[in-house]
């Protein structure tokens, strides 16, 4: 073990954690816990350590512990972070304050209610929309897409729906009906997809005062995003798409089916694709 790791091992940290039990408490309050820091300990590790050794009633949400599922996003010293990706030593204070994500109702302790957040995501039709419903529901092949077309939206497809962007958004703090950076960036993700033909339908879902133009570009969502999705960029590009569609009347024709090259046989030793299951 290195000297630095030994130094970490001995350090005592104070965690100031927001607690709330809807059956007992009228409003949330803070409770302090002291733990010995271990080398490589994340905020989520610290919460699990507190639950295992000091207070089994502490509630939080977690799953993958590797920054993929997005369950463990919380406010750490006032900033939304994935707690499984945040080392305790990254935080330069001796007392670390952990709250549930801001701008979401609290179910219990550090568990936010993401029901409304998911409903907003669902509202923008987050899937490829095609005119040929028969082909969409029973695909006979792939839609064609070039690598350059993929780059148009790929960044926004990395969203893990952790909800950090809405906790950071100042507009969302005052407007509870705001569609929010996650859903708007997701709307751009599908609007920019060359295979999609549902731009008009998707823009119709955003045609209300608490939607696209309620974003006044504070950029906080992009700073808070733990996956580098940059929702504020997606929102501004979606505004441009809306302008092009509604004012200039420009739209895109969705990509057609990829053509199987003719006259090419299967090489020896390569097995046939399995039978379709759906």
């Amino acid at each position: 073990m290195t000297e630095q790791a030994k130094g970490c091992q001995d350090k005592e940290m104070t965690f100031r954690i927001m607690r709330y039990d809807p059956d007992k408490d009228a409003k949330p309050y803070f409770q302090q816990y002291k733990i010995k820091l271990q080398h490589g300990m994340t905020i989520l590790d610290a919460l699990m350590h507190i639950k295992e050794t000091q207070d089994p009633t502490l509630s939080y949400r977690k799953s993958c512990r590797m920054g993929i599922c997005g369950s463990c996003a919380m406010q750490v010293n006032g900033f939304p972070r994935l707690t499984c990706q945040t080392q305790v030593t990254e935080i330069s204070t001796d007392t670390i304050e952990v709250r549930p994500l801001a701008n979401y109702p609290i179910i219990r302790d550090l568990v936010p209610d993401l029901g409304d957040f998911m409903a907003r995501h669902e509202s923008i039709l987050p899937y490829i929309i095609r005119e040929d419903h028969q082909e969409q529901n029973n695909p006979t092949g792939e839609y064609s897409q070039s690598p350059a077309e993929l780059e148009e939206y790929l960044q926004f497809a990395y969203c893990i729906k952790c909800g950090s962007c809405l906790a950071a958004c100042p507009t969302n703090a005052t407007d509870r009906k705001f569609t929010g950076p996650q859903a708007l960036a997701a709307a751009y993700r599908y609007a920019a997809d060359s295979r999609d033909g549902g731009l008009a339908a998707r823009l119709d879902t955003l045609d209300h005062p608490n939607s696209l133009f309620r974003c006044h570009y504070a950029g906080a969502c992009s700073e808070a995003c733990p996956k580098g999705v940059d929702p504020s960029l997606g929102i501004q590009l979606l505004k441009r798409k809306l302008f092009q569609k509604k004012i200039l009347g420009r739209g895109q024709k969705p990509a057609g089916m990829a053509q199987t090259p003719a006259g090419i046989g299967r090489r020896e030793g390569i097995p046939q694709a399995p039978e379709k299951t759906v």
Partner: protein
Amino acid sequence: MKFPDLKSKTHPNFKGVPGWVWAGRYGIERQLYILQRMTGLGVLLYLLMHLIVTGQKLDQSSWEFVMGQVNQGLLPIGEFLVFAGAVFHALNGIRLALVHFGFLMRQPGRPIYPFTVAALGQRWAVYSVFIATAAIVGYGGYEFFIVAGH
């Protein structure tokens, strides 16, 4: 059979107005978001006061009396702050109008760690707003305080 209500009781955790007034450790665009709103509200408040004062049916002596009152104490400084706020609001508004349609920003790219934000592409516009505001407000201050002697 009556099913129990499974909807959980929750505590509203919305930040409300403090959520946009306090930017904490966020970046410069977040701070400018506050300043743009504050200066907008300030200019709007001044416009309302201005309409009330100039909308009065006053004879010449009463008008001169009112003008004498608004030129006393700290009111000229307040008036100059409205001018400074209006200049910043207008210039930053031009930047925002361009940014709102995706101009000045970096284009989408693969998120590779350490992540960056497209807002960095328009930072030069942010600094240009600061420089232009300082130049115009500085010249205005010279005219207002030195030449006109307020």
